[in-house]
């Protein structure tokens, strides 16, 4: 008897999952009109006055999911990559589905990934952090050692300096996820380097730190000592649980507000020296080429930026009437002070509501209610941070930096809402 019911239940689930996959792919391909999409998704047998199966029969018991996963109906909320961008998946990137997230916390499994030599698999017993160079004592710490130091818990965004890098010359990728998704925001637990370094001591001549990863790319970046002592962390946990393997398990460097490449994952070593090391990642990469042929170097801070996550190319408007425009803003220089939203391509602006907590160097959520009556809209958002820096337009950036910079495109994006509710990434000029 019980078994039969279980069987019914699982077929019921299967049917719905199939429906969902159809629905999700339609959004990707934009093949269905919004109205059709809606009517395909609900099963009238589950609607009042009918009795849905989940109301009548038992669901799964407690042991079915020892580690809980999102609802199967959220299967479209995943990281996605752009295959043509890179030669190999081990040195590649995928993107956070910002358009499907609420609040400011990025769930661990959805934090975008960027590796240069694949994901290292490290038994925490085999983890060692070496500190050498211009210190009083060259030392080695186990993970357990690190966890015995005074602890810090902080929310920070991590953004890749190449986020939006494909958009310098024009609108290329038609999605919020692909154009803004190289950012995530989690709460880190770890030890402040200023505490850890009390144990090794620091020679007066120490001005730079080389942070080195233990992955097969041997990721390395030079970081000035002022930053290291100000707010950098060796973190072993994110959002309350151990770091995910793809985020550097068992420990990574956290460099608040600065470009993600510096947040070395699978960290194995910090070397203190009197000069920068000029690694491949801070010469060949992560330097910003100008039209003169000269390149800016050591451009570490992530300037203020914002994005409207809904409506967006993945989140068309499905009905006329009231909607809540939603978005995210962040700044590597501190707190977000204000976000303005325009529905007419930047001619007129309205200030959006910021939702607490508004934290320094963290994603900040904003919303703005709006009424849609089927007209064309040109949606933009503009962040202002506590230093009074205003998020620029792409033409303001291009005037100074040209179009070959790749990195640090923090310009305002434009979403065109068409009369049928579809949304497109467009360039104005």
């Amino acid at each position: 008897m019980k078994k039969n019911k279980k069987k019914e239940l699982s077929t019921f689930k299967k049917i719905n999952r199939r429906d969902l996959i159809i629905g999700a792919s339609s959004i990707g391909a934009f093949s269905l009109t919004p109205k059709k999409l809606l009517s395909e998704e609900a099963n009238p047998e589950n609607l009042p006055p009918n009795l849905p199966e989940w109301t009548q029969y038992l669901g799964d018991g407690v042991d079915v999911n020892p580690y809980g996963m999102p609802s199967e109906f959220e299967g479209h909320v995943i990281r996605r990559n752009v295959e043509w961008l890179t030669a190999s998946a081990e040195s590649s990137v995928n993107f956070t589905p910002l358009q499907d997230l609420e609040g400011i916390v990025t769930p661990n499994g959805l934090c975008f990934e960027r590796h240069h030599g694949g994901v290292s698999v490290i038994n925490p017993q085999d983890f060692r952090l070496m500190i050498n160079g211009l210190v009083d004592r060259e030392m080695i710490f186990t993970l357990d050692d690190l966890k015995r130091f005074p602890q810090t818990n902080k929310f920070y965004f991590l953004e890749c300096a190449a986020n939006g890098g494909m958009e310098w010359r024009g609108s290329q990728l038609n999605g919020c996820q692909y154009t803004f998704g190289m950012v995530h925001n989690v709460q880190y637990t770890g030890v402040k380097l200023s505490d850890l370094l009390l144990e090794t001591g620091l020679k007066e001549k120490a001005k730079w730190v080389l942070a080195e990863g233990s992955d097969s790319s041997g990721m390395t970046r030079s970081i000035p000592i002022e930053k290291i002592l100000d707010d950098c962390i060796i973190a072993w946990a994110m959002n309350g649980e151990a770091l995910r393997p793809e985020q550097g398990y068992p420990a990574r460097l956290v460099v608040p507000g600065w470009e993600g490449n510096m947040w070395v994952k699978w960290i194995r070593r910090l070397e203190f020296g009197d000069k920068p090391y000029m690694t491949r990642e801070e010469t060949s990469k992560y330097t910003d080429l100008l039209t003169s042929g000269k390149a800016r170097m050591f451009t570490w801070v992530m300037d203020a930026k914002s994005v409207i996550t809904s409506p967006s190319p993945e989140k068309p408007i499905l009905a006329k009437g009231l909607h809540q425009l939603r978005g995210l803003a962040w700044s590597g220089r501190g707190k977000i002070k204000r976000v303005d939203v325009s529905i007419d391509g930047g001619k007129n602006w309205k200030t959006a509501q910021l939702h607490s907590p508004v934290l320094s160097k963290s994603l900040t959520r904003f919303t703005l209610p709006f009424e849609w009556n089927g007209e064309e809209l040109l949606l933009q958002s503009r962040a202002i941070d506590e230093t009074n820096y205003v998020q620029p337009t792409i033409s303001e950036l291009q005037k100074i930096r040209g179009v070959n910079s790749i990195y640090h495109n923090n310009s305002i994006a434009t979403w065109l809402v068409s009369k049928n509710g579809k949304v497109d990434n467009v360039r104005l000029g």
Partner: protein
Amino acid sequence: MLGLVRCILGFSLIIFIANTATASDRKFNLGQIASSEEVAGWDIDVRPDGFGAPIGSGTAFSGEEIYAEVCAACHGDFGEGADRWPPLVGGEGSLASHDPEKTTTSYWPFASTIFDYIYRAMPYGEAQSLSYDETYEIVAYLLYMGDIIEEDFVLSDKNIGEIEMPNKDGFLLPDPRPDIMNTHGNPCMTNCQVSTNIIGKARDIDVTPEDE
């Protein structure tokens, strides 16, 4: 460079640590002292002035063969890049053009970086498998292909810090940002003079991946 990062807290901590360092007491008594052998095994970085360069040497002449054997499959016989793998040489004079080609010889400011990176990360998927001599040989071969040294030049730990790369003056410091600060927190709110013509649509470029 350092003047960039203005952080009073950071500076006061430096002084604090420098003072406690002279006292031999460790604050928390956690962790182990590293032996010199342990440090030597992991301390593989090489700095522009040659600091950290391991003892060894090699010429382009001897580097050609090993390059062909372990690197050329991905980076091309002449460093031009195979398929979508990155090119390693070429692109001289292209940096100010519409389509700059950034390679070790057209863009990288220091020879040390080439050694450091190849030794730590290449060949891709077999990191730190080259000997020091092999690495000097391969770096010499790349520099030779970029017309930076002669074929019989012996590159070594003694002179890697003295190689002059063509683009050594190609980098600007310090970071001038915020480089756009014209409205000081009070941008235009109404009837702003902006162009709202649509000049491009990502949909028309048609390179966005679609879900299956």
